[in-house]
């Protein structure tokens, strides 16, 4: 999809920036990397509109993991033998790959975890537990996923602290002045999502961090939906923590990343105890390993880390601006298509959104809509999207959510519209 050019790096950047967007991004070519997209579902071509739940995996990711198992597998950080050395190189190479992706200052600021949920739990129960005491407050937004609510709620219960919520408006936009008003003298942590999984709202994280830091409050960012769509430069955002999952960014399940500023990670107590997180153990005393290993007890998900690195390589090889423009164009087209369906209301109309289209349709229950669409080969998510407080705020029980990825096409959004007409015929 990109012409073979081998100029020096600065020239390459220039070439990329000036290439017309529509020429640079070939979605059919991108789809070829995903064999699953070619399989029929229920006798029809698959229309996969559930990438916010999990993305499909491009071939290079699957191949990198297979290669690791076939050629390099051994336990890391332990053996003196050849394969252990190779596995350690692969695993630590993946950490360095993630460092470049997030533009962290050093690779030791990246902790490999199972996913965003585990990352947020880790922060809550190390950093949070050390910082939050009786009468203190933890601030979250009204649009958080359960995984950025429940760990903080558990912590607040344990520490007899208070969970405070920053409100949103009816479009699903976080109210920054209301957020700032809630940053009080007892606020110890602000936990906020980069992008809403249910609505697609993009939060101005950089601005939020500035506001919070002015009140000396550290910021934990849930990047599960942000990292797959937006630049996640942790130095630019200046957030204290940033968490994301491999499987939502074209990588495998079971691997995710917690970024934490070194000064925080150094000061944090360990989380889980076990092998690899120690320097020495006696029955009297254990000395903990340096960061990030202090937070990686047990044999890690080595193949997962390799797969994640491969997914970041795969992304980096795409013409990035054109890829983002493709997603933006899909969002605009999808918004237009769905808006033309009588009786359909899009939920989440923030001016700054990623390609997530949440909606309700007549008074037909989203579950019934999902079942009928499924029979047309169309995969959407229905329900509360693990954001029940957000649904309550919006006065809804559930929505249908079509979430898009780099492989989706306009034709698939047209298919969604046709499917919805079938839903109407069945239930109207």
């Amino acid at each position, binding site marked *: 999809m990109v012409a073979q050019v081998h100029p020096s790096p600065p020239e390459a950047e220039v070439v990329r920036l000036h290439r017309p967007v529509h020429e640079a991004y070939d979605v059919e070519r991108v789809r070829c990397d995903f064999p699953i997209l070619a399989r029929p579902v*229920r006798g029809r071509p698959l229309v996969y509109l559930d990438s916010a739940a999990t993305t499909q995996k491009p071939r290079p990711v699957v191949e990198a993991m297979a290669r690791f198992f076939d050629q390099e597998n051994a336990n890391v950080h332990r053996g003196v033998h050849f394969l252990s050395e190779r596995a350690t190189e692969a695993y630590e190479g993946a950490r360095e790959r993630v460092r470049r992706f997030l533009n962290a200052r050093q690779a030791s600021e990246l902790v490999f975890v199972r996913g965003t949920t585990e990352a947020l739990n880790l922060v809550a129960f190390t950093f949070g537990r050390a910082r939050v005491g009786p009468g203190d407050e933890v601030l979250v937004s009204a649009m958080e996923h359960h995984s950025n609510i429940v760990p903080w709620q558990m912590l607040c219960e344990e520490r007899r602290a208070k969970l405070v919520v920053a409100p949103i408006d009816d479009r699903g936009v976080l109210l920054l002045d209301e957020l700032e008003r809630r940053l009080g003298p007892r606020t110890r942590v602000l936990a906020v999502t980069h992008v809403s999984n249910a609505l697609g709202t993009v939060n101005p994280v950089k601005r939020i961090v500035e506001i919070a830091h002015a009140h000396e409050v550290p910021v934990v960012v849930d990047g599960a939906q942000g990292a797959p769509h937006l630049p996640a430069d942790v130095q630019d955002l200046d957030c204290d923590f940033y968490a994301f999952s491999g499987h939502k960014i074209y990588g495998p399940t079971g691997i995710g990343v917690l970024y934490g500023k070194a000064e925080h990670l150094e000061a944090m107590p360990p989380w889980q105890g076990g092998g690899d997180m120690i320097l020495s153990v006696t029955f009297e005393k254990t000395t903990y390993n340096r960061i990030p290993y202090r937070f990686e007890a047990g044999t890690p998900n080595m193949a997962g880390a390799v797969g994640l690195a491969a997914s970041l390589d795969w992304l980096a090889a795409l013409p990035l601006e054109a890829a983002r423009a493709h997603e933006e164009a899909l969002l605009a087209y999808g918004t237009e298509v769905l808006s033309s369906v009588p009786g359909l209301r899009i939920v989440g109309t923030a001016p700054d959104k990623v390609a997530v289209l949440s909606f309700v349709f007549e008074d037909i*229950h989203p*579950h*019934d809509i999902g*079942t*009928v669409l499924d029979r047309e080969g169309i995969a959407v998510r229905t329900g509360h999207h693990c954001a029940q407080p957000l649904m309550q705020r919006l006065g809804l*029980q*559930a929505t249908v959510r079509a979430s898009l990825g780099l492989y989706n096409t306009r034709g698939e959004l047209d298919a969604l519209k046709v499917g919805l007409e079938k839903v109407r015929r*069945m*239930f109207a």
Partner: protein
Amino acid sequence: MSSELDDLYQDVILDHGRKPRNFRKIEGANRQAEGLNPLCGDHFKLYLKLDGDRIEDIAFDGSGCAISKASASLMTSAIKGKTVAEAEAMFARFHTLVTEGPDKVSMADLGKLAALSGVCEFPTRVKCASLVWHALKSALASQPTVVTTE
């Protein structure tokens, strides 16, 4: 439209989903239970008036998808006036119907519940159809607690 889909959303189901029977609160109910499906947010309250061993009145309110609402409507219609033992036997037949299929149960014994015969082809929807039945079981066992299908 696939025929499995037509089997799931039979006219009886669509009718009961749109116009559920026994959709009200019973004042003075002496048994009560809630059914909650955390996956999709379906939430029903079930009210019973038990006279000794007989279900004198039964009704429900709340909200949910067409399948869960129709199932609640059909269930309340089917067991009103029945004894607890008869209701439990009905539950067993219903359960076999939605998990194993119409071949495994006598359709004549099911009455209108037979309209739920298409559910077994949709494993993700069995929970919807079962929700209110689990609430019934909980109400009959005098455990006025929220039951979930998760």
